[in-house]
């Protein structure tokens, strides 16, 4: 039987990691992730988790230790944030190109400078093209449930890719919520028994040269297969979500969740992560006023669920994307550009970029109301420009700082 606990997002992450029975863990402390590694270390020290942990000297080594361990056929887990992820980039990229199903939580934190500790998806979105699968989750229950699903997806023979479960630093990492914790037997029934690779390994009984110098033609074949695996993951993620729901009774809508969207909806707000809670509230308020606006939460950014998103937006006139990150060079957020790429074949949709909540700034219900009203206005406008300037949603006016 499962039981209910009040726990922080980081506790939900460490609890899920322990339930997944990893063989090897390696992580380096960094705010706001640190308590994940602390709690796992404690669980091992107290004999509650039968696993080995490497107390590494850096994030670079954390990922490297896990790569070695995964090549030695171990199930692996780590957690990091912002600068740690940046420092880890070299082995991070390679975890995916070696096709190692490492699972790593990311407590999202803004990238410096200026010096900052607080939430933004700038860290993990900046490495979205490093070949990993990336989930972005909304609350602590979803952290726990998604980490379990991630092990299932990562080790699936159709996928064999590393996975990030990203959640907003402090907003989730340090906030306490009610979390339903499944018992070990339930999780054991859900997950593969162990990680047993037949594609890449280091074993004196089965000698293999891992990563010899490789010519471009063969490298292209590897890349093509890697990209194909990412696309297959879209299906596997949905499957894992369904199977999980059947076993545990909680459904997280695979790659994309539509909230209050029907055939009358004319405008949609698109969100990522914890901001979705405030967005739901705003949509409820505006719908009660009769405004034709709904909400789409993108749960998986890599692979990007373009087909599902297109279908959801098929009857919609205007879409607003709220990004807690920036896309340098485009003067928008990153998810806005992703959405734009997905709907590029739909000239009837007007799109509006919003940037909000950088460096941990609150994204309020009122901000979502402002954003949603703007989207509704665009939806009702005839012959409006498709290319809208970014609107910065800020609680303090710029004048104050002058």
């Amino acid at each position: 039987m499962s039981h209910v606990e009040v726990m922080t997002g980081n506790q939900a992450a460490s609890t899920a990691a322990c339930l997944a029975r990893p063989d090897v863990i390696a992580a380096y402390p960094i705010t706001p992730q640190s308590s994940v590694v602390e709690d796992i270390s404690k669980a091992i020290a107290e004999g509650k988790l039968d696993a080995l942990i490497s107390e590494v000297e850096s994030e670079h080594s954390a990922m490297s230790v896990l790569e070695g361990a995964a090549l030695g056929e171990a199930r692996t887990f780590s957690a990091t944030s912002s600068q740690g992820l940046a420092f880890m980039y070299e082995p991070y990229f390679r975890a995916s190109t070696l096709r190692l199903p490492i699972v790593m939580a990311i407590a999202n934190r803004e990238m410096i400078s200026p010096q900052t500790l607080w939430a933004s998806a700038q860290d993990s979105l900046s490495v979205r093209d490093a070949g990993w699968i990336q989930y972005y989750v909304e609350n602590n229950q979803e952290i726990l449930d998604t980490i379990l699903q991630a092990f299932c997806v990562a080790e699936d023979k159709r996928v064999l890719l590393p996975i990030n479960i990203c959640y907003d630093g402090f907003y989730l990492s340090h906030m306490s919520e009610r979390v339903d914790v499944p018992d070990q037997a339930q999780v054991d029934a859900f997950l593969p028994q162990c990680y047993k690779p037949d594609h890449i390994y280091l074993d004196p009984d089965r000698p293999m040269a891992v990563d010899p110098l490789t010519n471009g033609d063969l490298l292209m074949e590897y890349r093509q297969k890697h990209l194909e695996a990412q696309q297959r993951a879209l299906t596997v993620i949905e499957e894992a979500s369904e199977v999980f729901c059947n076993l545990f009774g909680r459904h997280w809508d695979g790659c994309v969740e539509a909230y209050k969207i029907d055939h009358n909806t004319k405008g949609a707000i698109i969100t990522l992560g914890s901001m979705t809670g405030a967005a739901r509230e705003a949509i409820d308020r505006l719908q009660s006023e009769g405004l034709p606006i709904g909400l789409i939460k993108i749960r998986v950014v890599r692979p990007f669920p373009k087909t599902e998103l297109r279908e959801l937006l098929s009857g919609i006139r205007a879409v607003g994307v709220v990004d807690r990150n920036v896309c340098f060079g485009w003067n928008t957020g990153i998810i806005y550009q992703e959405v734009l790429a997905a709907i590029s074949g739909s000239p009837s949709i007007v799109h509006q970029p919003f940037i909000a909540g950088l460096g941990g700034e609150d994204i309020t219900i009122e901000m979502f109301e402002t954003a949603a009203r703007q989207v509704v206005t665009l939806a009702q406008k005839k012959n409006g420009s498709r290319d809208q300037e970014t609107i910065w949603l800020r609680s303090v006016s710029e004048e104050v700082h002058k």
Partner: protein
Amino acid sequence: MSVLDVLDRPDVISPGISACVGCSVELTLRTVMKVLGRNSVLAIPPGCMGGVGVVGWDKKSGAEIPVFFPLLTNTASMLSGLRLAYKRQGRDGIHVVAFAGDGASVDAGFQALSGAAERNDRIIYICYDNEGYMNTGYQRSGATPKGAWTSTTPYGKLQIKKDMPRIMADHRIPYVSTCSPAYMKDLVEKVEKAKRNKAGFSYLHVLNPCVGGWGFPPEESIEIARLSVKTRYFPLYEVVNGEYHITVDIPNPLPVSDYVSRLKKFSRTSEVALTEMQELIDQQWQELKALEQVRVNGA
């Protein structure tokens, strides 16, 4: 068992690798792996041995044992992870081996190496030191000696060589030694000791003369290596659980000029610089002798 018996063992490294003529690193690698045997996993980071194909090419392996490319920067940590995986499976007999150049060890890979040594992970880490980034065209490294020409120090390096074996010994790991391809018996015995070390980290530092980068005829590789020891430029010693022991004593050293004059990389070295180099060598030998006198438990 004699050293010759070891050298007669089957070679697990491919005969087709493309090292330079007279390369002492290739000889060292083949010998080391004859000692360690097939129940090993070999990490070859980017560097000369990676470049010449020990990991392999396309789908062909350069060795008969599992071999892989770590990054330049993470050789030791990847091996730490492998060791944990094998520990988890109860496969403690597998030798987890790094064969890494000085760039991957004393410079870019130093943090990972120091971390793994501090954790005392059971890894056999062999640094083949040819005193520079020889695979990429003879650039300077932290292991390049003062005064030496490299392609990035065209008028000679200004700083002294990083004393890596001493730094590693100060991690208080169970086994550290220096080795030379000119002293094969000594080298084989030291690799044997690392092989038997179940208590934790083993670090072996081999000075490997580089024909192209140092500038000497290919047939003189071993002779140059021997001169580096006979001049006390590169003393052969080991540090077992903190206790220093010089394994090849050099009671009557040759002057360092006998070594320096054989190498084109020192062709611009002045008399003053040569005197300084001799002073440093004398001082380091004295330190080594003093360290040899220190007994860990006061015994």
